[in-house]
């Protein structure tokens, strides 16, 4: 695929040199999202794993700063030692996904339901732009309004606006105890009605997933002494006891979902949407394994057929998707999100299209 040997920078200066020396580059962290990190059309591969390690972490600040090539698993393990976690719950921990790859792909997981996604937790960024310039934006404190919000811009930027070299995140204390309730409904309409009722209620869920055809998976978290009472209230809200998961089996259940492997083979695609779009989508997606996260705001699905078909299908629904695994000419499928604001900002950061 690649026409040149991969580069393995171990410093920001080496990343800068690489950008200046090669006409076209594609960055790769852990390679867990190959559709986004495989070089194409003469791109030189830049392996970012050499820029690795936590730079600052003071648990009392709720802030962690790390080099972009740091594996998520390493950060998660460090946070867990202090009872903290990444609240946006990024996928592919066991597959070696890195902080930089997660931000560039803009990926969050089921627990984003409670406090928000990766865009809500990124605080600061250091990047090398398409001209090899080293640029910082944001900061390392949880509240900051100085300058343009470059950290948020980098979420979902797919490595095309800059190569991420260091990132700062807000982190939170992890729930002391969790439990999960699985509730099946006779039809999708009833599952969706309950999803809306839950999302508009003061019940605070760590996850609110919809598993087609009509099952809701709900995760509660908090202080263990309050959990039984909250579970009882949730069950009475639902009007049915549901199937309860607790203890280690519950933790293992969610860990098992983190690699999205349960969706099976085929191209792995993320779709951004709202719950309102689900009924129409369900009518056309056929047997493709899938799961809706965060009260219907996020869909991960596996597509066995041609991606061109899914692309057309999403376009017809007015939705956009991102291919994480699988072969597509462009990872962005569905409706075209390009507009003049995007083109001009991209040209400002990468005028020669080295990262495009």
């Amino acid at each position, binding site marked *: 695929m690649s026409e040149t040997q991969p580069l393995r920078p171990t410093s920001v200066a080496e990343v800068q040199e690489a950008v200046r020396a090669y006409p076209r580059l594609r960055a790769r962290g852990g390679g867990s999202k190959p559709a986004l990190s495989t070089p194409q059309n003469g791109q030189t591969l830049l392996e970012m794993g050499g820029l690795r390690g936590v730079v600052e972490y*003071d*648990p*009392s600040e*709720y802030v962690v700063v790390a080099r972009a090539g740091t594996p998520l698993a390493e950060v998660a393990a460090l946070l867990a030692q202090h009872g903290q976690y990444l609240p946006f719950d990024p996928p592919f921990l066991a597959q070696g996904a890195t902080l930089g790859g997660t931000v560039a792909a*803009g990926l969050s997981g089921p627990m984003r339901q409670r*406090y*928000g*996604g990766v865009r*809500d937790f990124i605080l600061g960024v250091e990047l090398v732009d398409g001209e090899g*310039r080293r*640029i*910082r*934006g944001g*900061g390392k*404190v*949880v*509240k*900051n*309004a*100085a*300058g*343009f*919000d*470059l950290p*948020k*811009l*980098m*979420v*979902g*930027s797919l490595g*095309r606006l800059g190569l991420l070299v260091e990132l700062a995140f807000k982190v*939170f*204390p992890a729930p*002391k105890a969790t439990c999960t309730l699985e509730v099946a409904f006779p039809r999708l309409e009833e599952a969706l009605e309950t999803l809306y009722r839950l999302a*508009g*209620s*003061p019940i605070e869920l760590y996850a609110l997933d919809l598993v087609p055809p009509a099952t809701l998976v709900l995760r509660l978290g*908090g202080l263990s002494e*309050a959990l039984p*009472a*909250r579970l009882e*209230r949730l069950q009475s809200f639902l009007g049915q006891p549901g199937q309860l998961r607790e203890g280690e089996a519950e933790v293992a259940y969610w860990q098992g979902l983190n690699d999205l492997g349960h969706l099976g083979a085929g191209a792995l695609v993320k*779709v*951004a949407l*709202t*719950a*309102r779009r689900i009924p129409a989508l369900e009518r056309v997606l056929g047997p493709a394994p899938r799961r809706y996260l*965060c009260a219907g*705001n996020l869909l991960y699905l596996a597509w066995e057929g041609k991606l061109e078909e899914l692309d057309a299908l999403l376009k017809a629904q007015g939705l*956009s998707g*991102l291919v994480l695994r699988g072969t597509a000419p462009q990872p*962005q499928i*569905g409706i075209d999100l390009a507009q*003049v*604001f*995007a083109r001009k*900002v*991209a*040209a*400002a950061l990468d005028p020669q299209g080295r990262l495009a």
Partner: protein
Amino acid sequence: MNPALSELQGLFPPGRLLTRPGELAPYASDALTAFRAQPLAVVLPESHEEVVEAVRWCVRHRIPYVARGSGTSLSGGSLPVEGGLVIGLNRMNRLLRLDPKERLAVVEPGFINLQVSQAAAPYGLYYAPDPSSQPVSTIGGNLAFNSGGAHCLKYGMTSNHVLAARVVLPDGQTVVLGSESLENTGPDWLGLFVGSEGLLGIVTEITLRLLPKPEAYHTVLAAYDALEKAGQAVAAVVASGLLPGAMEIMDALAIEAAEAAVQAGYPREARALLIVELEGEAPQVEAEARYLEEVIRQSGAYEVRVAQSQEERLKIWRGRKAAFSAVGRLSPDYLVQDGVVPRSKLGQALAEIENLSARYGLRVANVFHAGDGNLHPLILYNGRVAGELERAEALAGEILQLCVRLGGSITGEHGVGMEKKAYMPSMFTPEDLEAMQRIRQALDPLELANRGKMFPGDHPPHRPPSGPHPLEKAGVIARE
């Protein structure tokens, strides 16, 4: 008449095009009254198309402009460009759509922050960002400056609650950034736009995210005989693994002022007050309250009060929210600062501010969002004493440098605007600032949109003596 102006007359009817000095005077400054500038004209559009027309007129005639809401900016962000156009958006103040099921509200930029929550209240929903200016400040202004409030540690800032925006770019083209989904499949263009201080465009329609109102609150007021102990209490709360919705600290001077203004019933002799508020599902809040009680007990508070009713809760907050304008009673003039330090450096920052206060011979009252390290030192001075304003500004500048030195930021929520642009180089390198400028110039090569703000190096406008804003005197807005 200036031919450009007569062309503008063709675009806006009389009454929505202001050009006489008397009509322009209310627009000469915002809540940062130390700055003042005379615009050429003010237009008051009532539609997206009229905003487009106004921007295109500016481009045709190379006239710089600033979009303005209620003018509550504390960083001078809505100060007019001298000789430029003010695009006043207060007439675009409609709630276009409220969708309780999808939990979103679509508003025009002149819609008032607090009215979003009021409109959503019948459905058990609310809009989370709560800057103290929220009874008057507009969503358009909140978006431009990424406004904060007292709940940012847990809930984030304005940027975390905006789903989509219709934007008139500096060349007059229209784009829609974002969507109704919380997720995205490409670069977060909307994330870049929010907080860009009016330099990258003007919003004409905004989709906001609404949250369910928490079921229960638990509000604790703790009094300390030393500011340091209150700061340590905050660290202890965080170390315990609790995530309160808000943690606020007031020092002795701020307590004195708040009491004089609203009689919140605070312990007057306290050297520091800490307000901690838990919120969430009732059983969870009850359980957390027991942990909090233990943490506060061990923190050396000499008096602890727990709000027993919604009325008592609001009374505790009333004093806190009034603290800023109340300080006006203690001094003829004051400057409000807005800096951020890492939470663990709060104690050190406060001690250094106290030293600076003594060295400059100016009193400083401290009211701050302790949960997110956001300091709001209020520097008291008398504008009639020669040189005091300059001393107050020098002291304010030292506080900002201190925040940067401790690893924080020059602004937590007020923005850079006019006030802090000279401090941008202490936080960012020339390369960082140049990158931001490149983005700006790509969208606005003529630098017409809010020219002279955020980036260092432009000439300061006229500087008459400062004092309270007319709205502030009337008790309508508070400086925070």
